[in-house]
Each structure stands twice: as C-alpha cells, then as structure tokens.
C-alpha cells in the first residue's frame, strides 16, 4: 500500500529526517490556523496516492489568505489522478538552493535492497537515468545487515558532495534506510531532497510503499489497506482478502488462483468475448471465502445487466469440495433475484471432483469437468442473452 505524503513525512520526522514545517488541512476553516503556524507564502498539496500531482494541478503556492482559501476550497473534494481529495498538506515554502534524490527500493531480480541517489532531483528519476545517468549512483546492500553509515558516506562522496552537505546527505540516507527497514517497505524515497539557501537539507516530498504481506507488523496501517481503492467492489474484495478487478465486458471470471483466472480471461477473449470481472479467490476453499467471492460477482451482475454469465473454475488440490459448495449455495440463495447463469468447471483431485458433482446435483449451477466445455457454455450464454 502506498502511504500519503503527510503519513510518510510523519514517519520521516519520527526517524529524525528533516521535514518542512507543516499542518494538515481538511476544511477551509483550517486555513487561518495554517497561516498562523507557517506564515505566507505557503504551499498547499493535495494528498492522493499518486505521482505527478504538480503537473495535474494538485500543488499550489499561495501568497495571501484569500488566495489560500480559494485554493483550499477548489482542491478539497476535487478529483485528482482518479482519487477524491479530502486532505491537503500545507507547508512552509522552502528557499531552494538545489534539489537532490535518494531512494531505496527492493530489487526483485537480485533479491536485495538497492540504494539509488542522485545529485539531481525534483523530476522523475527515470528521466534523470535517461538524460543524466552520470548523476546517479547505486549500491546494493545485504538485506540482513542493512545500510551501514560508512556505505552511506561512500555513496555521498561518489556524488561529489562536500563539507556539510556530504555529512547531512549521508545522515539522511542512513535514516531513510531505517524507514525502509523498520516499516517493511518495498520503496522509500525522497524526491526532491532539497538543499535550502542556508545549507539545510529537507525532505520536500515523501514516497513510501509498504508491503501488504508485512502489514501484520504494522497494525496502524493494516486497517487502511483498502482505503484508496475507488471502485466499491474492488475495495470490498481487498477488504475480504480476495483479488477482484472490475472490468468492462460481459462474462465475469473467477478461479482459485490468479494464473488460472487470467488464463480463463484469455480464453474467453480468444473466443471473441470479453471479461466483466477478474476474481482470484486467493488461498484455500473455505466456505466464507467462496461465499464472499461468488457474492461479489453476483453483485456485479446485479449492478450491470450487461453481465451475461459467471464462469468459475475451481481446481481441487488439498481441500475437499464441501465448504466450497456450501459457500456457493449460500451466496446464490442470498442473491436469488439476480438472474445470471453460473457455469462452474471443477478439476484436479479426482475424488473431490466426483464429490463436488454429487453435492451439486440438482442445483442451478451448470457444471463441467472440462475447461473447454465450460468456456463454451459461458460464451454461448453471452451470445444468447
């Protein structure tokens, strides 16, 4: 999950990385308080979990109280980068001498954290890598030991930093690694890291991406995991721990495995039909999970009459089918007014497949043991209805 800028800066502050004076604004009424604390001019920044906010009009410099109120009024409740803006961050305006970059990212391929720093910042690091590759330095560190202060100094030296800046840059970088480590981040980044005219280094922005698998160690954020998912069905899926993606077609697809669900989508597309939703049920065939999953698709069909069929593929590996069947039946019973055919393909361990067939006898579910036949049945329903 991606943290908002102000949440990242609170973490920076907690770990002693210098950040601007700032205060949260949730209402036009908060403006006077902000001016009292920060003075004028100041900066107003929309808090949405997306990059490129400046270009999209989400970052404004204001010089008077009237101007501040106007901007706050306009930004709050507006939509920016597909997210509703409900929080602004107001900050002191920094006196910028130059902008630098430092970031720590997990490299999947090598399986190590990579430290990336640049004497140039404020723009996409991608652009710097392309245009000024000589301004970038990188090192990898052993994830078990982390970044050592001397390694931070070495990389700061390579950037050509001297005197006070050398010292404070390596210090910020060392602490940024602490953020990465102690919050189980996949990415922690300061861009730009501003050097002010009086020689102070300040993190003018923050970007922290937490690892969803580690949120059990960070309960404060666990509850917030799904907050920025704007589509209500997708948000509900995320809250229930199933992987739901809302799409635009007419056949809703579900399987117990992401690869299998993707392959099913590819199959119906290759037959000239299009998927209405993708759902990977995630781990295990528990009754609740099965019920939640099918309910999501039934609600999708309830909302959009263009959904003509639900295609489900369940592979039995280790769990018997009883809980799955019970979960499906409950979901169908609760949404019995939704008129959409359900095609179910069961495969895998033979004795579970046989048992599922027995348990589902007499139900409304259209049952198959061959993927081809299941796909055919679903696409025929789509063409017919």
């Amino acid at each position, binding site marked *: 999950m991606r943290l908002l800028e102000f949440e990242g800066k609170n973490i920076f502050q907690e770990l002693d990385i210098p950040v601007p004076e700032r205060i949260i604004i949730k209402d036009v009424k908060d403006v006077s308080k902000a001016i009292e604390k920060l003075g004028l001019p100041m900066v107003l920044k929309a808090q949405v979990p997306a*990059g490129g906010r400046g270009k999209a009009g989400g970052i404004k410099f204001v010089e008077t109280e009237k101007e501040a109120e106007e901007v706050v009024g306009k930004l709050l409740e507006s939509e920016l980068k597909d997210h509703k803006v409900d929080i602004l961050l107001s900050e002191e305006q920094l006196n910028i001498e130059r902008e630098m970059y430092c*970031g*720590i*990212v*997990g*490299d*999947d*391929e090598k*399986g*190590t*954290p*990579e430290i*990336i720093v640049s004497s140039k910042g404020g723009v*996409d*690091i*991608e652009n710097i*890598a392309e245009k000024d590759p000589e301004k970038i330095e990188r090192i990898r560190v*052993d*994830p*078990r030991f982390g970044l050592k202060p001397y390694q931070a100094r070495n990389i700061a030296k390579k950037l050509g930093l001297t005197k006070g800046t050398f010292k404070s840059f390596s210090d910020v970088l060392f602490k940024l690694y602490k953020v990465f480590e102690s919050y*189980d981040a*996949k*990415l922690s*980044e300061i*861009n730009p890291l501003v050097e002010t005219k009086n020689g102070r280094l300040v993190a003018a922005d923050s*970007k922290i*991406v937490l*690892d969803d*698998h*580690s949120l059990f*160690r960070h309960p404060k954020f666990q509850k917030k995991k799904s907050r920025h998912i704007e589509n209500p069905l997708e948000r509900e899926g995320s809250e229930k721990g199933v992987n739901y*993606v809302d799409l635009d077609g007419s056949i809703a697809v579900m*399987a117990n*495995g*992401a*690869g*299998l*669900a*993707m*392959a099913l*989508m*590819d*199959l119906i*597309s*290759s037959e000239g039909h*299009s*998927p209405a939703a*993708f759902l990977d049920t995630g*781990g295990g065939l528990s009754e609740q999970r099965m019920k939640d999953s099918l309910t999501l698709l039934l609600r999708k069909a309830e909302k959009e009459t263009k959904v003509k069929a639900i295609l489900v593929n369940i*592979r*039995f*590996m*280790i*769990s018997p089918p009883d809980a799955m069947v019970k979960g499906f039946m409950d979901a169908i019973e609760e949404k019995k007014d939704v008129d959409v055919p359900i095609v179910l393909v069961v*495969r*895998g*361990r*033979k004795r579970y497949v046989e048992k599922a067939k027995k348990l589902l006898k007499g139900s409304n579910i259209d049952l198959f043991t061959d*993927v*081809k036949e299941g796909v055919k049945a679903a696409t025929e329903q789509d063409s017919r209805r």
Partner: protein
Amino acid sequence: MGILIDSKSKVLVQGVTGRLGRKQTELMLEYGTDIVAGVTPGKGGEDVQGIPVYDTVNEALEHHDIDVSTIYVPAPYVEDAVNEAIEAGIKFGVVITDWVPYQDEMKIKKSAEESENFRYIGPNVPGITIPNEIALGMLSSPSVMTPGNVAIVSRSGSLTGEIAEELTEIGIGQSVVMGLGGDPIVGTRMVEAVKMLEKDDETEVIVLVGEIGGSMEEEASEFIREKGTKPVVGFLAGRTAPRQKKMGHAGAIVRGGKGTLESKIKAFENAGVEVAETIWEIPEKVERLL
C-alpha cells in the same frame, strides 16, 4: 529421474502440526512420498499420521537422514524456519507458505545464496512432483499427473496442475511438474530450472508457464537462445489482463522496460520458444515437439 528429488528422497515437514501441514502430510504419504519426520517447536514427542514430530530440525536430523524439507509454517515464521533448515545442513527446501513478508524473502534468498549447498523453491509455491515417484506440496493428485518426458515449470500455482492435467488427459506424461512461486522474490528462478532440465535425461520437452510482471521469462529466454538444446513451449497468462499498477519510478528503473507482455513474447520468440496463445494450444504444441 527428474530433477532435485527422486523416489528415494527423505522428507521433513516443518510446520507439520498446523492445519495445512497435517492435511498435506496425509496426502503426500498417500502419494508414496517418504516423509520421515516433522518439526513444530513445542510439539516434540507427538506424531502426525505416525510420523514423529521433533522440536527442532537438528533434533530430527539426529534421528533421521533428511534430504529435503517442505515448509508450511505460518508466514511470520518462514524466515526463521528456512534459516533453521539451512543451518542444519538440509540441501533442498520447498516453501509452500504464501503471504511471506517481502523483506523476509530477501533475507532468505541471501542466506541461501551464501550457503552454496542449499536450494529452495517458493515461497508461495504449490510444490514439486515427479509423477509416480514423489510429490512435495499440493501437487499430489495421482489422477492429474503421469510419468513421461515433459517438464512443466510454472510461476502460477493453479496453472501448474491444470496444464499437467491437460497433458495427462491426452496421454502425455511428465518428467517433473514444479512451481516456482508467485511472489516477486523466489528461491529458484525460471532460468535455473531450465538449466537443471537441460541436464535431465528424462526431460525431452520443457513447458514454461509465465505471467506478466517481473523479468524471469526474459532471463530464461536469454539462456535458451544461447545454450538451450531442448524444445520449449512457452505460455504467458494475462494477455488480456489490465495493466498492473506500477510500483514507482525507482522500481521502474530497476526493471528497465522488462515485464510487459510484449517484452516477454518477444524474448520467447527470439529464443525459439514455441509460444502458446491459450492454455489449449499447449498440449498440441507439446505433442508436435515430442
């Protein structure tokens, strides 16, 4: 024969007393896998399906020869369990658990690299099976797999079994069926599996099942193009999937344009891999190459 394991492999189950550990131990034994011991800290002295349970891996090793450990411990304890296996001198690990923290995966990977004689597959892997010889993990349905000369290597757990079953249904057997794991950082990457299969006499054709994201397919293709001698069929799930949300710019640099469907198809094609557009095309392509 196959790779990494055979019918003589002696197996330990770490996390044997948990719900998943118990159930899978039962099914693996049913398949004929030679499970000799289990470990759950604090449960030493108990037994699961007649298999003795020990408190530590070292203790299990005092009483049994062990070649491989299958790991079912809950996600927060996986890093510890894998390190315990490495330090005890186990040679091969199968890490079934999913939702393992990302930074723990990095640490495991580093420890494994450093130890030099430890290899693992996973985390978040369905397992590895050599049909009619040994099954480790969830791929233990006898009806799904049959012995033969096609190796299946897959990033997707659910597709591993599906593709094996489709081949079995038309009478094509498998030398080995293995998952790599669905997480970004895995113990054995696709290219390493391909290198092992190149040396395996039982394997005539290799099926690689990839997905969008990451760079494993590109990396494997490079090896196949330069040194591969066996025919390979490649499949990529998610041709019609919506573009995944990018993680960030720093991440994008590291990945440097790799990971898209186009990049993977191109890599496969340049390496002479037969690309199946749907899972249905896999059996026919394999049949032609055998």
